[in-house]
């Protein structure tokens, strides 16, 4: 019975086929199945030299997956991010390894790309787009634009009733900025937002008076902020010739528009200092101080120099006076020395006369009285020749004061007023007139 059943089964099925050939056909058949995306959680990650293996599973089942390391490196997830527990989307198709003489056959889902699912999926797409735009140099274009520290007209793209608008107005008021704001209100969340925001930016940039444009909205999930990661919008921003300042979401949020903008503020609260870097109130105070410093420097320079010039102008007069004083002192010294010299000479002459007379007297008392008398007479005659009277006899006059004392200088005579002129034959009173006339101006 059993034998009969076996015989009938063998005969009712095609084959038998050589298993190796069957395995290769199975591989071909599987590879021809349409490629799909699977979503699930990664478990049991392992790696060989050329491939990574893992199971993708959810609560209802699992599929063995394999990916060439080359493909994993190029995938949105990145080679190093493949680990147990992450939820991923896998792109790929069925594959079958037929095995060999020793190697075991193996069925697997051959993945060609892996990316994070859900929010993770968005982040992965964002990262891919970011890499692309950076590679194209679009992050640098806006950063090369001149961004004024004190713009007078600012364009703003934001939601009409949003908190970002209130934040901006309050912040600008705190900085003392009261210029012109041109509002371009736009939806900032739904899937139509990006094109409207892009149009508003272009319209604002087309107005010549707009010096800088702010794009701002409050925080939200990455999905909420997705409009600001829109590729077309970001390319538009990169190409604008007016600097765009972005202030989107919370500090941790990093949208693509932040990368292409000229400057990215961490939150809408920081937007005012982003669009008007100059604190106008502080700037006014600084300017006031500068004006005072300049005034002081100008006035100080003139005062200091006029004092210096005055001192210089007085210099020659002082030097002249000093020279004059020195000269007068010397004149006084010379005069005193001359007077001293005259007095010493008179004393000396008197001493000589006394000595001569004494010698004569001694000689007179000697044996030859007559001879000595004659010698005495000669000596007397000689002595007389030195007496002042002899000088007077030669026509000179001696000026004396009222007391008979000799006046030997013009100043003494001028001071005396009343003088006596002594001649050889007598004295006569005289009166002086006028000041002393010097021989030479000292």
């Amino acid at each position: 019975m059993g034998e009969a059943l076996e015989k009938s089964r063998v005969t009712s099925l095609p084959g038998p086929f050589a298993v190796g050939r069957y395995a290769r056909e199975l591989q071909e058949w599987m590879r021809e199945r349409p490629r799909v995306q699977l979503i699930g959680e990664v478990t049991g990650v392992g790696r060989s030299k050329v491939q990574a293996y893992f199971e993708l599973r959810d609560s209802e089942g699992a599929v063995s997956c394999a990916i060439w390391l080359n493909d994993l490196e190029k995938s949105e997830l990145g080679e190093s991010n493949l680990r147990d527990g992450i939820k991923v989307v896998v792109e790929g198709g069925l594959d079958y390894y037929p095995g060999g003489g020793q190697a075991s056959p193996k069925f697997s889902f051959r993945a060609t790309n892996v990316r994070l699912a859900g929010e993770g999926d968005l982040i992965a797409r964002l990262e891919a787009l970011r890499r692309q735009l950076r590679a194209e140099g679009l992050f640098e274009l806006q950063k090369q634009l001149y961004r004024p520290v004190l713009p007078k007209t600012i364009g703003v793209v934001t939601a009409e009733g949003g908190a970002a608008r209130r934040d901006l107005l309050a912040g600008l008021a705190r900085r003392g900025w009261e210029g012109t704001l041109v509002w371009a209100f736009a939806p900032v969340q739904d899937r139509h937002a990006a094109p409207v925001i892009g149009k508003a930016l272009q319209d604002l940039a087309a107005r010549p008076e707009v010096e800088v444009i702010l794009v701002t909205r409050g925080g939200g999930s990455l999905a909420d902020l997705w409009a600001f990661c829109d590729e077309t919008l970001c390319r538009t921003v990169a190409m604008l010739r007016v600097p765009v300042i972005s202030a989107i979401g919370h500090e941790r949020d990093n949208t693509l528009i932040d990368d292409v903008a000229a400057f990215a503020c961490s939150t809408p609260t920081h937007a005012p200092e982003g669009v008007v870097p100059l604190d106008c109130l502080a700037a006014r105070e600084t300017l006031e101080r500068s004006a005072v410093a300049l005034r002081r420097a100008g006035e100080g320079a003139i005062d200091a120099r006029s004092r210096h010039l005055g001192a210089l102008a007085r210099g020659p007069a002082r030097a002249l006076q000093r020279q004059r004083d020195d000269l007068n002192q010397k004149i006084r010294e010379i005069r005193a020395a001359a007077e001293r010299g005259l007095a010493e000479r008179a004393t000396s002459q008197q001493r000589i006369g006394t000595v001569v007379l004494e010698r004569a007297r001694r000689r007179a008392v000697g044996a030859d009285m007559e001879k000595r008398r004659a010698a005495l007479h000669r000596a007397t005659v000689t002595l007389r020749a030195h007496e002042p009277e002899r000088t007077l006899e030669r026509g000179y006059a001696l000026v004396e004061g009222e007391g008979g004392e000799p006046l030997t200088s013009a100043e003494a005579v001028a001071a005396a007023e009343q003088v006596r002129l002594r001649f050889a034959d007598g004295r006569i009173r005289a009166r002086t007139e006028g000041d002393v006339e010097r021989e030479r101006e000292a």
Partner: protein
Amino acid sequence: MSERPESYEAAVERLEEIIDRLDSGQAGLRETLDLCKEGRDLVSYCAAELDEVGEGLKELRLDDLAAKLEVGSEQS
């Protein structure tokens, strides 16, 4: 003013240079007076720039501006 500053920040930068030079005390009288004049001109320029954003916030709507522009072009 010999020439208008390129920007507010350029003016402030030059003004700081001038004040530093004056504070150094190394400038002669002629240079001091020239720097003071240049500095006063820069202060005037900066004050005028600040005045332009100090006379009350003005808020316009891009839509209104665009509408005015269209009306203006129709009239002309």
